[in-house]
């Protein structure tokens, strides 16, 4: 008993001294404070220009990551969305039963109790509301269309686990509609990015996926809208992209998970 206590004390003292020595070394070598106070070139450009409305290259958005994704690198993000769209199309091609007669759809009765079902029912609308908030405020706080859509998809996953795939299809979430929402959203994102090009043809300089005005281009999406109830900061096209991306991601992932759940419920029956 005595021996084990002294052993414990030695262990504790060794551990604490190792931590203290490491902290001391880190502090002396200057590794702990490296680069906190100074920004490198590209970071300085982004951090100082994007949120500042007085600068000519501003995006009028406070969330710099989302602004870079949709404004500075808008074309890149569009193709990322397209890649995801193709992945969804591929999963539909592999797993879809659209048009076939005998689609096995489970009800989840075998493996969930009433407690799981009722709690799921109560939690799902809260997830929907929170995901909408994440998507709408994507240009102001960390978040955005993809993040909001991904959070929303938790709701269909819970419903599929608790109630089975029949519940979701009976509420109108069938494959064709989800794919249509997905395709429409991706198309609209491209149309919003293409509008500056139409301006280019008729008026003057503009760039593909341009958001607000630039020093050599007058084209701009409205980024600060005055209304009787107050100013609404939309950060130009970033808010539109975020909302469209929210629907695209939510519909696409719901579709993929719906098809996978159906496959899982079918089991080994052919």
């Amino acid at each position, binding site marked *: 008993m005595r021996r084990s206590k002294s052993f414990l004390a030695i262990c504790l003292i060794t551990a604490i001294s190792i931590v203290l020595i490491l902290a001391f070394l880190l502090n002396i070598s200057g590794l702990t404070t490296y680069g906190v106070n100074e920004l490198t070139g590209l970071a300085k450009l982004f951090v100082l220009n994007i949120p500042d409305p007085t600068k000519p290259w501003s995006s009028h958005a406070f969330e710099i990551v989302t602004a870079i994704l949709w404004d500075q690198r808008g074309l890149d993000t569009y193709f990322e969305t397209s890649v995801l769209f193709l992945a969804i199309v591929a999963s539909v091609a592999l797993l879809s039963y659209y048009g076939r007669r005998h689609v096995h759809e489970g009800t989840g009765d075998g493996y969930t109790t009433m407690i799981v079902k009722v709690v799921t029912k109560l939690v799902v*609308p809260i997830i929907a*509301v929170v995901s909408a908030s994440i998507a709408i405020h994507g240009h102001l706080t960390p978040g955005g269309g993809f993040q909001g859509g991904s959070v929303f998809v938790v709701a269909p996953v819970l419903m599929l686990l608790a109630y089975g795939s029949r519940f979701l299809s009976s509420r109108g979430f069938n494959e064709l509609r989800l794919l249509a929402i997905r395709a429409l959203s991706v198309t609209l994102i491209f149309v919003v990015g293409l509008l500056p090009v139409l301006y280019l043809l008729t008026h003057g300089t503009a760039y593909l996926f341009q958001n607000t005005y630039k020093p050599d281009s007058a084209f701009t999406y409205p980024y600060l809208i005055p209304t009787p*109830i107050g100013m609404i900061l939309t950060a130009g096209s970033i808010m539109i992209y975020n909302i469209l991306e929210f629907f695209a991601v939510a519909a696409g992932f719901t579709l993929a998970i719906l098809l996978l759940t159906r496959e899982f419920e079918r089991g080994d029956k052919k």
Partner: protein
Amino acid sequence: MRKAVSIIIYGLLMAIVYLVYTGVFSLVEIILSIAIGLIVAYIFAGDIITYPSKFSLSRIYHAIAYLIKYFTVIEARAHWSVMKIILSRNTSLKPAIVRVPFKANNPYTIVFVANSITNTPGTVVVDMDENKKAYYVHWLTPTSLTDDDAYRNISLEFEKHLTKVFE
């Protein structure tokens, strides 16, 4: 009519969730939250609002009274008894899984009673049988193993209050 009132109240509750999550209380945000709350409430109302005709203010009063009583008196009492077990030197505990019957019919009553049992320290609902109308509860300090005694000791108080709210 009652259905519409229920949807509006549910939509306003969802609007409060939205506002609390967002953390901004400007006029624009409040209008947006009510719009989104009503849309979400309209979509999910069919599954969540089961008996719109049963809506009344006395049920809300009973719900709030139960919430206050649950989180102050009942929780404190349960925590105190479990704390005494944890801190005592007597480790001769004999936990058991007992069957606790319930009389409620509304799914909300059944689920909220089950969650009340689970949330109080010392008792956990491990399974339930909807056809036999019984929970299976893991009980840290069982005083008796018969159904009636378990019902009286574990779920009578919860069911008495929640029946007034949901049934």
